[in-house]
């Protein structure tokens, strides 16, 4: 019997097979490091039942996925045009710092209803500006964006640590390195998060599909040469795309302080690499907004159980990075497998 997969079937088969292999490899590595694989599975899958737990658990997963989801949505925009923004982590961190500044030091001077919008704007602008540097260097001088965006991630780490320790440290914080807590009006829950996600995903979807910018961006992505002949300005599109990409990553940073921690601490304690995980979500979702949202929720599931896994199995953050890296390998294997399956289908 010959396999004659339709395109959709090919995609499903390829993704399922690749993800299964990635999970098996992950389980094997966990096992060889002396961790219980079944224990891990039990922790991750627990808490969905009985039904009264379910809605709490789902909203908790949702909130935990936001720091990945926003950067991932932004990365779609950059990656679609073939601009390798690896700097979502840094853009997220500066967005986080800007949101903290509004939420801690400005909130009591602002009318309550304007605090969250002000945080959104501050986080977006900070992230966008952080991303603009590499975009300009690329456009003006042709400097490799992979490296400039990456270097700025490390600069952002030191910037956040500097702000927390030397500028914004809570004088009543018992010597802990952290800012005073965010104002009550500066916190977000699942509902506010959902509004922001719909807005951000809608923006990306609409922009890519229905605007001149989206059209030009996709042309550059598929053929830079054709774009040049068509008279599309690479400089303009790059800059705009990176402003959006960095801005959305900045929103991810806001969702960390406003949705999860409620205060700013050292960078290492604020982000286990959300910006890098955003790359994985973007790729797993094959750069389609809806699929990327789904992929981010899946990754949020792991982050949500982080503290439990840490407490019950003494698993540090390393395993999430390993898991993420394996998922990214799965994403590219699935592309390869799918191509092969389609060829096989055509031959059959």
């Amino acid at each position, binding site marked *: 019997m010959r396999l004659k997969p339709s395109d959709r079937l090919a995609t499903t088969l390829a993704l399922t097979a690749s993800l299964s292999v990635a999970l098996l490899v992950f389980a094997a590595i966990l096992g060889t490091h002396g961790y219980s694989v079944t224990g891990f599975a039990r922790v991750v899958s627990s808490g969905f039942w009985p039904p009264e737990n379910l809605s709490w658990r789902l909203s908790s997963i949702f909130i935990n996925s936001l720091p990945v989801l926003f950067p991932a949505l932004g990365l779609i925009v950059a990656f679609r045009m073939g601009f*390798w923004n690896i700097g979502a982590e840094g853009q997220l961190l500066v967005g986080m710092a800007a949101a903290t500044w509004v939420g801690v030091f400005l909130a009591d001077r602002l009318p309550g209803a304007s605090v969250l919008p002000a945080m959104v704007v501050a986080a977006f602008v900070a992230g966008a500006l952080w991303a603009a540097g590499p975009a300009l260097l690329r456009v003006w001088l042709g400097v490799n964006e992979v490296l400039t965006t990456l270097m700025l991630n490390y600069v952002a780490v030191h910037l956040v640590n500097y702000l927390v320790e030397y500028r914004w440290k809570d004088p009543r914080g018992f010597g802990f390195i952290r800012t005073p807590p965010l104002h009550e009006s500066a916190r977000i829950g699942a509902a506010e998060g959902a509004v922001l996600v719909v807005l951000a995903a809608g923006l990306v979807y609409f922009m890519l599909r229905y605007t001149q910018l989206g059209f030009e961006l996709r042309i550059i992505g598929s053929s830079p040469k054709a774009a040049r002949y068509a008279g599309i300005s690479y400089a303009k599109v790059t800059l705009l795309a990176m402003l959006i990409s960095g801005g959305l990553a900045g929103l991810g940073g806001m969702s960390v302080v406003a949705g999860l921690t409620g205060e700013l601490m050292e960078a290492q304690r604020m982000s286990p*690499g959300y910006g890098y995980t955003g790359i994985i979500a973007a790729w797993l979702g094959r750069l389609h907004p809806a699929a990327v949202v789904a992929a981010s929720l899946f990754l949020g599931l792991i982050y949500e159980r982080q503290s439990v896994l840490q407490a019950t199995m003494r698993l*540090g953050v390393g*395993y*999430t990075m*390993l898991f*993420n*890296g394996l998922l990214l*390998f799965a994403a*590219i294997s699935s592309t390869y497998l799918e191509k092969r399956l389609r060829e096989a289908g055509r031959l059959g």
Partner: protein
Amino acid sequence: MADLEMVLSNLMRYAVDYSTPLLLAALGEALAERSGVLNLGVEGIMAVGAATGFVVTLHTGNPWLGVAAAGLAGLLLAAIHAFFSVTLRANQIVSGLALAIAGLGLSSMAASGYLGRTVPKLETLHIPGNLAPSWLNDHNPLAYLALLLSPLLWLLMERTEWGLTVRAVGDDPSTARSVGIEVARLRYVCVLAGGAAAGVAGAYLPLSVYGGWFEGITAGRGWIALGIVILGFWNPLRILLASYFVGAVMSLPHVAPALGLRVNEYLLLAIPYLAVIAVLSIASIEAAKKRVGAPMSLGKSEY
């Protein structure tokens, strides 16, 4: 002015120490890139090299075994990247990123159980007589290995037929294949060798600089090494100079107090990354003027 002289000599000594892992990793990466394969996984490979070197030395008490194991680990990780980018012809950027992320995670899982333990460092090598100025003397053997490797790799790339073949594969793989060169095999060799070098570069950190391991020990050095390859225009001798320059910038926190510089510690920590961005920008201008560039098929898996 004896003071200033001493500070400078100190700076130059630290610069050698800090440049060594950058140089080793960058030379390895340059070899891989010359064959046309971009390996963005260097940071992950270095992290695993650091963890492996640390753990193996902890168990055996012999840092050289740690170095060897780290090289082997680097080679194996690079094989994954080679498989994806050469055999499956997958997107090299994504495969490299996956390796970087997975490697960072793996290293943390492997070594965090031994956090706080110390390991014996590699013993320094004394060059007798007046052959070496004092700032260049009494470094560990890996520093000298890296210094020697640079001209050797230059000779290999520029003066041997093998080097010419590698460059041909990196510039125009389909033509190379049509004249009977085994492109895939050659790329594997270059990527694997580059991975081994990155692994050893990682092991240098616990076994020479820190004498122990901590989370984030590589601190972006793998990414900096990738930048150094570009700064060096893929030329091993220029890469030596670029590594040394970045190494000197990374040494600033050690000499800043002696120079009377009162700068915030976090600014000092951020300076190397900003410096890399600055010199990359300058190098881009220079590259455009001199019309030098990356190997022509770099990063392209299809040919």
